């Protein structure tokens, strides 16, 4: 099956074509859904078979290149239309097709009754097609094809409900914003590609990476290449300063947010950096930049997440923050840990989004968590799976998020970046806090919605995907149990991926040695921190309102007692929560996000538009004026001829 890996790409394309061309004619939603998700399901099965085939091969033979046909041949540039099956691309392929399949199935229920049901499924299939191209490519050009393709699908799907209003503008504007921001990233990526071609004379992964470890290239060139590629990654993976598009991208249907803007596409940047690990490892300065940008993104996004009231926005900022973690891992040189977090994050974040979708579905498109509350009794499955995901993202052992997040933090510390470790732990606490604020406000406490809403549990076609993802979120981390717990087997996930990063690790400074005690101590700190944050969040959002309202009237004595406790809360509020909340709303969200970064992006576009408006006036419509311009050009050219000799 490994030789036929291209089927995993062709099947989604086929699904796209069938649904895209015949979709309007097929009136049957079920059939469209089956075609759409069936093609992805088959791809997933093929990926699984390929995975086991590869697993049975000896470690040094696990890379298979499947060449379809020669593609570009100009001079010394030879690029084939060929796919590379190895440990890294298999992990990603399993993830994309697996999670993709689950979300496709979920969408059958979620998009039920939409007037453009067929269009939605054809776009989703097109997305999987492009994404598979991206991760299975064996060269930069093919990767870029997928890179642009996923961007395009994301753009189409954000604006899917183009007739709906989204905040102040339309969803189409949100789509456009995503596209413009992504083009800045793409520019960086293209520049990086050119530099690679100039330096190594090839765009093939194997050639480039082998030459990168052999060729005598100065660190400056490596830094230039790495920083260009990283700019590309910041665009796609929503890192500072290009993260602004992702919250707006939530204008799309929720399954899209789950699949594209949480689980798969946004991790393309992480994948690309991991794939190019050799290049990054050769530029240690850039690695530090990657780590710093990553952790800054993580904490900024997490603090913004504290105050959002839109359920999908909270999750969007949480995604940005988790992506920041992944880049922190990459920057710390722990490429395997970064990919590990990509995987676990895909499970629990997809689950969170699908759960949110289920809630939104039940609440008739209401997205404000202040108008939820007490949904637990109406939606048992959704609430249970949601809490699993929330625990996983908060890093509570032994759920999946714990292992991946802790591995990243440990490597950060072990690599001497202890300061970043501190911020990382704070971020983890913030994460736990806002996740449980979200959970508590949504599912617990009293209902705060009107009587016109009748929440109900979603149909099976939506809940079963939730359950599957919940199981994955629980056990997904077990394949990456760190060495100190698993004994002589070591970290299985790591061992599986290590051949990919061998070249990179050879280039980097070996990690300092640290004792197991340190590792366990750090782990304990972060777990305790997260647990405290969870307790704190539940305390504020669950207990405080009820204490304030009910007990104050009934038991005046107890009330005074509790009032003191309340003072503690108040103190917390004033000293910690309020400054963060205020700072986060007034500066980080409003100014940093909306003014500075939006302003720069829009400003550049505006400047170009203004230049455009003025320079079109040059076209006066007078033929003789045109002739004068021509003659002017001729004079200049003649001067050039005269002076050049």
């Amino acid at each position, binding site marked *: 099956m490994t030789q036929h890996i291209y089927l995993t790409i062709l099947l989604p394309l086929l699904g796209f074509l069938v649904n895209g061309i015949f979709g309007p004619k097929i009136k049957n939603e079920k059939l469209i859904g089956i075609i759409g998700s069936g093609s992805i399901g088959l791809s997933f099965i093929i990926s699984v078979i390929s995975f086991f085939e590869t697993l049975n091969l000896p470690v040094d033979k696990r890379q298979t290149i499947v060449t379809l046909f020669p593609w570009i041949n100009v001079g010394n540039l030879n690029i084939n239309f060929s796919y590379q099956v190895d440990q890294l691309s298999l992990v990603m392929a399993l993830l994309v097709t697996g999670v993709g399949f689950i979300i496709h199935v979920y969408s059958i229920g979620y998009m039920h009754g939409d007037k453009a049901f067929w269009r939605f499924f054809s776009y989703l299939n097109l997305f999987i097609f492009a994404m598979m191209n991206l991760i299975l490519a064996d060269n930069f050009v093919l990767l870029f094809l997928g890179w642009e393709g996923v961007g395009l699908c994301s753009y189409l799907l954000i604006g899917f409900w183009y007739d709906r209003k989204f905040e102040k503008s339309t969803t189409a504007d949100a789509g456009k914003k995503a596209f413009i921001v992504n083009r800045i990233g793409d520019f960086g990526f293209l520049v990086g590609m050119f530099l690679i071609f100039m330096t190594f004379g090839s765009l093939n992964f194997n050639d480039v990476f082998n030459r990168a470890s052999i060729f005598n290239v100065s660190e400056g060139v490596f830094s230039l290449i790495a920083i260009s590629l990283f700019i590309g990654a910041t665009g796609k993976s929503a890192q500072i300063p290009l993260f602004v598009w992702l919250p707006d991208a939530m204008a799309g249907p929720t399954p899209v947010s789950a699949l594209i803007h949480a689980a798969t596409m946004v991790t393309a940047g992480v994948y690309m950096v991991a794939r190019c690990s050799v290049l990054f490892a050769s530029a240690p300065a850039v690695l530090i930049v990657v780590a710093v940008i990553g952790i800054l993104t993580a904490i900024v996004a997490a603090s913004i997440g504290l105050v959002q009231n839109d359920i999908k926005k909270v999750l969007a900022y949480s995604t940005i923050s988790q992506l920041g973690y992944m880049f922190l891992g990459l920057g710390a040189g722990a490429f395997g840990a970064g990919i590990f977090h990509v995987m676990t994050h895909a499970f629990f974040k997809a689950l969170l989004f699908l759960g949110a979708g289920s809630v939104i579905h039940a609440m008739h498109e209401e997205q404000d968590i202040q108008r939820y509350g007490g949904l637990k009794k109406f939606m048992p499955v959704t609430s249970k799976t949601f809490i699993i995901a929330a625990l996983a993202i908060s890093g509570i052992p032994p759920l999946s998020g714990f292992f991946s997040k802790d591995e990243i933090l440990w490597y950060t510390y072990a690599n001497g970046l202890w300061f970043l470790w501190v911020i990382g732990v704070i971020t983890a606490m913030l994460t736990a806090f806002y996740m449980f604020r979200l959970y508590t406000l949504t599912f617990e406490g009293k209902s705060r919605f009107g009587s016109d809403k009748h929440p109900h549990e979603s149909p099976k076609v939506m809940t079963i995907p939730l359950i599957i993802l919940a199981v994955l979120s629980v056990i997904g981390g077990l394949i990456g149990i760190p060495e100190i717990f698993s004994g002589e087997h070591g970290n299985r996930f790591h061992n599986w991926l290590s051949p990919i990063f061998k070249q990179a690790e050879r280039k980097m400074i070996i990690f300092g040695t640290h004792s197991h005690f340190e590792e366990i101590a750090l782990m304990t700190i972060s777990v305790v921190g997260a647990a405290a944050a969870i307790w704190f969040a539940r305390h504020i959002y669950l207990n405080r309102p009820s204490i304030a309202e009910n007990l104050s009237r009934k038991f005046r004595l107890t009330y005074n007692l509790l009032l003191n406790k309340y003072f503690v809360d108040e103190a917390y509020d004033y000293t910690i929560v309020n400054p963060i909340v205020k700072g986060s709303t007034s500066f980080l969200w409003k100014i940093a996000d909306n003014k500075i970064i939006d302003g720069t992006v829009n400003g550049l576009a505006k400047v170009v538009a203004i230049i455009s408006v003025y320079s079109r006036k040059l076209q006066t419509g007078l033929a003789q*004026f045109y002739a004068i311009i*021509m003659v002017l050009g001729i004079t200049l050219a003649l001067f050039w001829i005269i002076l050049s000799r």
Partner: protein
Amino acid sequence: MLNSLQDLYHIIPLLIVSGGILVSIIVEMYSKDSEKILFALSILVFGAAGLFSLYSVNNVSILFNGMLATGGNVNVFSFIFNIGAFIVTLLSADYIRKYGTYYGEYYIILQSSVLGMMLMAGAKDLFIIFIGLELMSISFYVLAGLNRKRYNANEASLKYFLLGAFATGFIVYGIGLIYGTAQTTSIDILTVRFPQLTGNLLFLAGVLLFLVGFTFKIAAFPFHMWVPDVYQGSPTVVAGLFSTGGKAAAFSAILVTLAALFNGNVGSLFTPYLIFVSALSMIYGSIVAISQDDIKRMLAYSSISHAGYLAIGLAAGNSEGTAGIIFYLAAYSFMNLGAFGIVALIEGENETNLSIASYAGLAKRNPALAALLSIFMFSLSGIPPFAGFFGKYYVFFAAIKSGLTWLALIGILSSVISVYFYLRIVVLMYFKDQGEEVIPSKSAMGMVGVVLSAILVVLLGVFPGSIINLISSFL
């Protein structure tokens, strides 16, 4: 002179088209229903000539005492012209009735212009280039102003004619200087003598004036000013032909004259000029296109910026650049013809529905047209895997190879800007509701033409390797 049947065999594409013109005139004279017959005849002529050019691509020879080359890239160009004209003919079938130029003569002039293009591509002597250029240009002037009742067409054809003739003046003067200093008009002899002539300023001035004339024809900055007005005023399908066939023919002539000169050690002689032209065309075209409201004007500015991308290949001056230009021209011809074809379908009676706003909500009313136009727009903006992407890639790589990395960077920057206005159309079609009711005209032939272009665009995007190998093998 033609010496044998073999020689006759080599010029069959030319014979087909010129025979077509003569037969068309006779048909036009004696037939009442000449429009339909001439449509069928044109389809036949262009199809046969185009396919035969590709079939006989290996018949490389030099005929007429070193005047005309056949085979190789000459035939590749001939293929581009003829298939381009084939698509234009399909698009015209119903368009010219709507536009009000439903005459048989239309097809005669169309065939004449293609004959001119083919002569330019095959030229081995300045005579042929000149005659071919004028045959094409004069046909174009007529095509632009075909419906004399329409004021826009009058104005477009007058501007095109005056400025075109003005440029011709410079070309003739340039040829005069080249002839006087090199003592020949034969390209091959010129190539041989070129190294001794590089010190001769008068010769260089002659080449420069010649080049300026052709810079006008390819619509590059600063000789681009006629383009938006002429494209806007001309019949839409004809504007499509100007921007594709006309541009391709002018590039073929530049390649014929200069490629030979470039390949020597003095290849970099005109590079500064070409860099200037190329960089400014790209930037100017992309920036001004942003503020256009008329789709034909927008496509005109896009055509200017594409002339810039193509000129990168000229500035690179290596065989990769030449191969890149030819590939790019093929890709550009088909995608631009497709775009103009859809504009022609959307256009209403009396040149209405040409504003960009008319495209709002097209995806709802006519998903097929919207999807096709999106393909062309993606291809024009250089998004893979369509043909336009590879065209740009080949010329950019050629530029990098000859050390013009920054020019390639300007190219990338300009294509980043250009995405904005191409995708604006896509956004309008998919994400906006229609303002007014715009019903595309029903034209089976037009749809065939557009679909054919789309197929060629996708094919060139998926299998660029084989075509580029074919082109490179003749360099």
